[in-house]
């Protein structure tokens, strides 16, 4: 368990490092131009929908901002094909879950971003999971 946790951290760091350097292209079909890759932002809210769809998963989160207004955030993740082989499933995120998510925010102040990591209760979700046939 310790080792697996460490592995996830290492893989997660590699991916984030890679994304930051632009050397590892994990997104098959688009660039990162829409995201501010120099920033990290953490939001907390309630999941309203989880799209377990190609070409990307989307976690939709209702976030109450400082003015008390509920904003809907769209958080893009890896595809179900990629994540499904690495420990995620369509049930990894459910409507009603209280979630804290760290993202690379969208540019121009739009309420969305690219998934970096999340926590739901005790569970930590990493952007690439862990290959299930290599544990």
């Amino acid at each position, binding site marked *: 368990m310790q080792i697996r946790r460490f592995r996830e951290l290492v893989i997660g760091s590699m991916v984030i490092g890679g994304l930051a350097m632009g050397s590892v*292209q994990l997104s098959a079909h688009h660039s990162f131009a829409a995201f501010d890759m120099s920033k990290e932002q953490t939001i907390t809210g309630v999941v309203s929908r989880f799209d377990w769809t190609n*070409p990307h998963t989307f976690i939709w989160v209702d976030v109450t901002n400082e003015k008390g207004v509920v904003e809907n955030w769209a958080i893009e993740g890896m595809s179900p094909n990629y994540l499904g082989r690495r420990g995620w499933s369509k049930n990894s995120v459910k409507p009603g879950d209280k979630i804290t998510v760290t993202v690379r925010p969208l540019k121009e102040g739009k309420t969305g971003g690219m998934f970096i990591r999340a926590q739901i209760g005790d569970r930590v979700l990493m952007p690439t999971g862990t290959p299930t046939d290599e544990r």
Partner: protein
Amino acid sequence: MRHAARLFAATLVVATNVHAQQNFVPKKPTEADWTAVAKLPDFTGVWEATFGGGGRGAGGGRGRAGGAPAFPAGPQLTPAYAEKRRANQAKGAEDSQAANCLPPGMPGIMGQPYPMEFLLTPGLVTIVIEAYSQVRHIYTDGRPLPDDPDQKFFGTSIGRWENGTLVAETVGFSPQTEIAPGTPHGDHMKIVERFTLTDPDTMTIETTVTDPEALTAPYTTTRTLRRHRAWSIAEYICEENNRNSVDANGKAGINIKK
């Protein structure tokens, strides 16, 4: 009259050349043909490029290219194509048409961060590519390459087995495919791929692009793939929920309307 006959004969010769491949009819496989397939290197199952190397590899190289040098030399371009590449870069496009779900074609489709499955049958190697749900056919039944191929995203491929290595030759590419991101190809680009098992569950694909108009030297990249016996290919319908886009000016967009 004699003139007409000559013209007819000439037309026939041209037609014969052009349609040499299209008219090739594979013979019905025999039991011996299937037995021969069983003796080929075991390419069966699902393979995915490995981490490591960090090179981008050949061709719209949007996938990670395991086993490639950390900073592979890019394609060496002729002055005319170096200028085309500069002009493309000067446009400052933020993304490619793949953001609109257009598959990259060859050679980029072989460098995606998704697995592929190899199917071996008599006279044919079929590659089922998960990214964009694509399929390539490499004919090993002795047919020739077409003399005047149509321009396809995957081109037209034939292959042969050389000491356990599948050597595939591919010609005839759509102008919408690229040698590498922002680098167009000429009409006579040729791609030779060498598929080799280096241990029971590891495959290398060495890809060499030649192009008399675009390249001053062959452009070779190598990928390493690992077999995942437990995996199967999943569907990848890019239009299912595509919220990314790129417009005619290269501006990337994202639709976050729920």
